[in-house]
């Protein structure tokens, strides 16, 4: 059953275009999606996912499992960095360990979106409040990461080691991608309540184009991930192992919590994917600014070069099987 789910996932356009990008790098094709075109798709996807999440949140209301689920998600984004840090410190210094830990506590919006598309092709329903959980998992992980830096750093840092917490919180909460996602969520929520006609007019943009745009963007992500994979090889076996086993561990943890929350299989898969995915947008940007001592090729390459492809290709169907076993045996 696992392998059939893997195959069903593999042979959809988003995943196939991701492969096309990976292979382009491997065979050294000069296929390139020049900047800032990837940014267009990335902004679009955040806007659309936020807007759609807001609509659904308006329709479903903020009740039942909404608040507990969001709280659990935020909890995971605080807990995962701590566990990850403990593991990473076995081999890495405090700066690098903290930066990678923050990365894994946070989420990958594109992995989440790909999981939603997977659920749609499986005709499994899922809810808009999961987008709110997504949006709220970026910032806490950054803050925990920086606290870990502060605790772990014996080394001299500028400003005599005093963190500029204003700058840090700003980076964590007002990072462009977090801001756009949360803003679009609110806009979807408000529009749905007040102007159904205008929502109707948004849908061809936010809804109909979504799947194709995701596929196009994943073509670029495939190119970028494959370029990063080479870096990762240089980073060594420990980090390669971490990039695969940590997500799996977090996925199992996530599945158990999803069962505790009583989530349906769709929402449960999304919850697991949030736990198992790692950030390659907001967190690396924040770490680059606030922890320049850490090597970006470590935290970007683990999250983007291996964990991301792993999740996109085999992770999502695997987690689905996990959810089917652990959470919703009847689903």
């Amino acid at each position, binding site marked *: 059953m696992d392998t059939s789910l893997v195959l069903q996932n593999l042979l959809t356009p988003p995943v196939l275009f991701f492969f096309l990008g990976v292979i382009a790098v491997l065979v050294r094709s000069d296929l390139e999606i020049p900047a800032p075109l*990837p*940014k267009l798709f990335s902004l679009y996807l955040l806007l659309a996912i936020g807007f759609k999440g807001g609509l659904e949140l308006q329709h479903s209301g903020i009740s039942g499992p909404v608040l507990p689920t969001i709280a659990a998600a935020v909890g995971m984004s605080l807990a995962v960095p701590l566990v990850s840090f403990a593991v990473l410190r076995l081999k890495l210094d405090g700066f690098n360990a903290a930066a990678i830990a923050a990365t894994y506590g946070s989420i990958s919006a594109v992995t989440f979106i790909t999981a939603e598309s997977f659920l749609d092709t499986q005709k499994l329903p899922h809810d808009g409040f999961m987008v709110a959980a997504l949006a709220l998992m970026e910032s806490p992980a950054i803050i925990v990461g920086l606290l870990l830096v502060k605790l772990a750093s014996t080394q001299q840092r500028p400003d005599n080691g005093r963190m500029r917490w204003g700058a840090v919180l700003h980076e964590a909460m007002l990072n462009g991608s977090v801001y756009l996602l949360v803003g679009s969520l609110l806009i979807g929520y408000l529009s749905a309540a007040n102007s159904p006609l205008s929502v109707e007019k948004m849908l061809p943009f936010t809804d109909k184009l979504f799947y194709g745009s995701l596929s196009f963007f994943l073509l670029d992500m495939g*190119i*970028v991930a494959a*370029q990063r994979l080479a870096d990762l090889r240089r980073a060594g076996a420990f980090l390669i192992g971490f990039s695969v086993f940590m997500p799996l561990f977090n996925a199992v943890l996530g599945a158990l919590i999803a069962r505790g929350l009583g989530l349906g299989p769709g929402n449960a898969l999304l919850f697991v994917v949030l736990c198992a995915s790692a950030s390659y*947008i907001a967190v690396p*940007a924040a770490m680059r600014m606030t922890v320049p001592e850490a090597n970006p090729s470590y935290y*970007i390459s683990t999250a*983007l070069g291996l964990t991301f492809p792993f999740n996109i290709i085999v992770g999502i169907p695997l987690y689905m099987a996990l959810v089917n076993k652990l959470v919703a045996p009847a689903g």
Partner: protein
Amino acid sequence: MKRLDLIISERELDAVLKAIDAAGSPGYTVMKHVTGKGPHGSVSEAMDFSGLGANAHVIVFCQPEVLDRLRQGIQPLLGYYGGVAYVSDAEPL
């Protein structure tokens, strides 16, 4: 007069420009989307969608005394974040 060429990460650009203004420079010019390689490794535009940023190339034409003040403001940033700064001679056309 002097010409200063700075190559730094786009992420540090605001701090660098603030330092240039603070040094009393008559102006500056910025080119973004610059890539390259240095002691800290390669910088490309591949992660452009992530806000990670490529490099920026900043040019300042100024009097030698401004340069002295620039040195003080910019050296610490280069020391902590990386980047290069070179000075040459230049005369107004």
